[in-house]
C-alpha cells in the first residue's frame, strides 16, 4: 500500500512520512549499495541511531563497551544536492485535501531523496531559498546529516520571493565535484535566478532534475468563484475567478509551462510536473527515474 498525499497533511513528523513513503516503494528504487561495507577500511566513528547493526564492530564493542561503526572509503564521490524553493507561492494549498500545500509536499519529496542518498552512502547537502535569502547546509554523509537536513527542511517556511541571481551565484561554490542536483519548485517564476542557476549547473555537467509542483485545482482551473484572490508574491490588487475567465487562465498557464519544459529540454534538464494530490511514492518514482530508460 503506497502512502497517499493526505498522509503529509496529517502529520508534521517528516521522518515518519519519509519512512512510510519509502516503505511503500519497496526496493525498486535502490540501485544497491555501491560500496562493499568495510572493503577499504577508513575509520571508526561512534554509533548513531539509524546506522545498520551489521556495520557495528562487535569486537570493538566488547573491548570498549561502546558501539563503533566501521566507515569504509567511498568509491564514488557523487554528492547529492537538494534545492528547495520556499518562496511565498509555495504555500499554495491543495483545494481538495485540507492541510496539504506545495511546500509540505516538496519537503517530503526532498526528504525521501535525502534518505535514499543516506542509505546509498552518498554525501548530500541542502539549499533552501526563502525570503530572498539562501540557507545552505554543507554536504556530508551519515544518519546525523540526514537528521540535520530533515530538521532544516521542517524549519523552512514559505515566505517572500526567491533570492536574486547574485546571492544564488555566490552559494553555488559547491559545484566542484560531480553531483546530482534535485530541485523542488512550483516553477511559476521562469526565467528566474533559480532557473539560471540550474541551467548553469547543468552546463557544468551536473545531473539536474527538477520537480515542478502543481495542484489539481490549477490543472483543472477549478477555483471557487465566490471569493477574490491575491498573488502572494506580487501586490497587484485582487483578482476575480469565474467561468468566463477559466479558458484564459488555462491558456496562460499552459503557455507558461510549455515554455518551461521547452527551455528545460533545450538544456537537457528533465522536468517532472506533478500534482500534489498524487501519491508521493509514485511522484518520487517518476522524478528519480532515469530520463532515457522507460
Amino acid at each position, binding site marked *: 500500500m503506497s502512502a497517499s498525499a493526505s498522509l503529509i497533511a496529517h502529520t508534521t513528523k517528516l521522518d515518519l512520512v519519509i519512512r512510510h513513503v519509502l516503505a511503500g516503494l519497496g526496493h525498486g528504487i535502490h540501485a544497491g549499495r555501491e560500496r562493499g561495507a568495510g572493503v577499504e577500511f577508513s575509520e571508526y566513528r561512534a554509533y548513531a541511531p539509524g546506522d545498520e547493526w551489521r556495520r557495528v564492530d562487535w569486537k570493538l564493542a566488547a573491548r570498549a563497551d561502546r558501539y563503533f561503526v566501521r566507515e569504509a572509503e567511498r568509491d564514488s564521490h557523487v554528492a547529492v544536492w537538494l534545492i528547495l524553493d520556499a518562496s*511565498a*507561492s*509555495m*504555500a*499554495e494549498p491543495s483545494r481538495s485535501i485540507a492541510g496539504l500545500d*506545495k511546500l509540505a509536499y516538496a519537503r517530503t519529496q526532498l526528504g525521501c531523496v535525502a534518505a535514499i542518498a543516506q542509505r546509498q552512502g552518498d554525501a548530500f547537502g541542502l539549499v533552501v531559498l526563502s525570503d530572498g535569502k539562501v540557507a545552505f547546509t554543507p554536504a556530508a554523509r551519515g544518519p546525523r546529516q540526514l537528521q540535520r537536513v530533515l530538521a532544516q527542511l521542517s524549519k523552512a517556511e514559505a515566505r517572500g520571493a526567491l533570492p536574486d541571481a547574485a546571492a544564488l551565484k555566490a552559494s553555488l561554490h559547491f559545484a566542484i565535484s560531480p553531483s546530482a542536483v534535485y530541485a523542488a519548485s*512550483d516553477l*511559476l517564476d521562469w526565467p528566474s535566478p533559480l532557473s539560471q542557476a540550474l541551467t548553469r549547473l547543468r552546463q557544468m555537467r551536473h545531473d539536474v532534475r527538477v520537480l515542478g509542483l502543481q495542484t489539481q485545482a*490549477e490543472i483543472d482551473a477549478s*477555483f471557487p468563484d*465566490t*471569493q*477574490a*484572490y*491575491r*498573488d*502572494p*508574491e*506580487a501586490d*497587484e490588487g*485582487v*483578482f*476575480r*475567478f*469565474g467561468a468566463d*475567465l477559466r479558458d*484564459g*487562465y488555462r491558456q*496562460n*498557464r499552459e503557455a*507558461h509551462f510549455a515554455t518551461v519544459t521547452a527551455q528545460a529540454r533545450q538544456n537537457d534538464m528533465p522536468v517532472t510536473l506533478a500534482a500534489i494530490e498524487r501519491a508521493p511514492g509514485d511522484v518520487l518514482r517518476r522524478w528519480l527515474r532515469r530520463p532515457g530508460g522507460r
Partner: protein
Amino acid sequence: MNNLWWFALPILLLPVWWHRRKRIENKAALMATARFLPRAEPRQTRVWRWSDPLLLLVRCLLLACLTAWLVNPVYSSRGDTVVVTQGTDAAWAERQAAEAGLAQADRVTLPGAQALGWVHAHEREWRAEARVLVLGDVPMPATRPLFGRQVEVRTQPAKVPNSEHHVFIASERAAEWRRMFAALDGPEKIVIDATPGAATSLIVWDRPGAPPASMKASLWLVTDARAFPELAKASKLGALHYADSARGRLWHHAAWPPRDADSARRLLDDWQQLHVGPRPYTLQSQVFAASKEADAPAPGGGLRDILLIALAALFVLERMLAHVRKGAQ
C-alpha cells in the same frame, strides 16, 4: 437637553461601514497562480453584501439602545388618574371622584405632602386628553404650583389630633400662669403637673433662687434672671432674653407673668411656633389651569430601567456572537 442625544444616532453607520469593509479585506484568498488570470476587477467586492448580518443587527440595536437610554424618552401611558392622599376618608374620595366623572380612573395613593410635587414631576407621562384629580388633605405649598396641564385639587382638611404638653409651674402666682395657659385654644392641650417629671416640656420658674440641678425641660420661663447665671450673657429680642443652658432653653422677661391679653397671646404664640411646631394648613380646593411657563422637570422615565436591561442583554449577546465568529474564522 436630553433630546440632543438623538443627534448621536448616525453612529449606527459605524458598524455598517465596518462590516462592509471587513468583507473586502477578509475575503481575498491567496492564489499562487493568480498571475495567469486575466486582469479583471473582482466583481463581488462591488456587490453590497453583509458579513455576519446577525452580529451587525445586534451591534446596531446596541447603539440605538444606548442612544435611547441617554435620551431617556417618556412613554405617555397614564390615562385619567385620581391621586388620593393617605389617610383620606375613602367614601368622601369616591364621592368626589364620581362627581368629577372619574369613578373608573386609576387611583394613586401618596402622602399628602408629596402629592402636588409628584404630579408635577410626572406630568409628561399622562396622555394629552387625560384628566388629573388630586383628593384629600393637601398641605398649602410655599409657592403657587405651576402645571403644564390642568390639575384639579379637591381638599378635605384632616382632623388634627390633640397633643398634650406637660407644664410645671413653680410660682407664688400660679393662678395667673394657669389663667394664661387656660386661654390657649387649638389642638394643643396643657396639663399642669404637680411635680416635674420626664414628660415635662415647660417649666415656669417664678421664684428667687436656683432650681434643683435635677430639673430639666426643653423650655424654661424665668422671671428672676439671678436664678440662672446663663442669663447674664443672654441674647435679646425686644424685651425677651433667651439663652441656652444645661437644663434647657431659658426665656426671661422682666414683665412676666403677662398682665394683659396681648402679651399673653404673644407668649403662647411664640411657644407654639418655636416649640410645638406650626399647625397644618390645608390648600383650598381649586383648579390649576395649564400654564405655559411650567417647566416640567427632566423626565425620569420608567423606560430607562427597561432600556438598561436591554442594553446589558444586547451587550452580552454581542460579546458571545463576536466570540463565536472569532472561533469560527
